[in-house]
């Protein structure tokens, strides 16, 4: 397909163009042209490195997800601030494993980053077969509850965004490349 050869990743191209305009603080014609050139050339150079099987099925849901995450980051800061100011004795830190329903590298990376940025949890390690994430919680009363919250709040949303069900993609090899 011609369109795919010129724009292998239209979403990435748009993000690059937008970033260029934001860096320059301007909507001048020159900036738009330069941003468009970057948006065309960079994906063309880098598309071989990308694991592009994961596709954004629902860009609007992605925006909604960003909103949820930003709200949770703000909430997380207050929670962690209170925990830091309180006595260390009151904290029960825990390391636990989270079984993943997501299968592709990109959504898993987004989930891991989300876990780190949101209330009281840091993702520590993704198992080599990409089926589990190790999560460290600063304070946890009930591990099962924390796992359920991460799954329900973030993972299920990501599954919807990337349009995959728990079963599909299970047979995919992680990091396998799509031939250009």
């Amino acid at each position, binding site marked *: 397909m011609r369109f795919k050869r010129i724009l292998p990743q239209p979403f990435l191209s748009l993000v690059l163009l937008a970033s260029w305009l*934001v860096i320059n603080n301007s909507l001048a014609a020159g900036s738009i042209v330069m941003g468009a050139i970057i948006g065309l050339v960079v994906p063309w150079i880098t598309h071989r490195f990308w694991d592009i099987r994961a596709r954004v099925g629902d860009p609007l849901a992605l925006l909604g997800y960003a909103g949820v995450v930003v709200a949770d980051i703000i909430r997380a800061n207050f929670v962690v601030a209170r925990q830091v100011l309180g006595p260390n004795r009151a904290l029960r830190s825990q390391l636990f494993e989270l079984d993943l329903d997501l299968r592709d590298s990109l959504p898993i990376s987004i989930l891991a980053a989300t876990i780190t940025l949101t209330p009281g949890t840091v993702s520590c390690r993704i198992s080599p077969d990409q089926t589990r994430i190790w999560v460290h919680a*600063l304070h946890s009363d009930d591990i099962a509850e924390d796992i359920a919250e991460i799954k329900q709040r973030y993972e299920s949303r990501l599954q919807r965004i990337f349009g995959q069900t728990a079963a599909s993609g299970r047979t995919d090899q992680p990091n396998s490349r799509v031939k250009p």
Partner: protein
Amino acid sequence: MLFELIVSALILFGAAFVLLGSLGLAKLPNFFMRLHGPTKASTLGVGSILLASAVFFTSRGGLSVHEILILVFLFLTAPISALLMARAGLHRRLSGDNPSHKEKDDD
């Protein structure tokens, strides 16, 4: 005047959270718990200082939005450095220096 109030409030708010992040780094009892300070408290802190910068320069004429990009890059990179440090910690089998914080460490 109004802008100055908003900018001052944002800077104070941000500075307080950056301070809390550093405090967490100094005070919490073990490696994994110390990771939580800089990954969270400081993201909101730096975020509101950047927002203050955007408001300040926008109020002096000329839209200033490139601070947003700094924030985006910060949100992209903070989890990655946290993940790398946590992995190094797991690899070295660090647990708490405080015996009351036993960690499951069966890598």
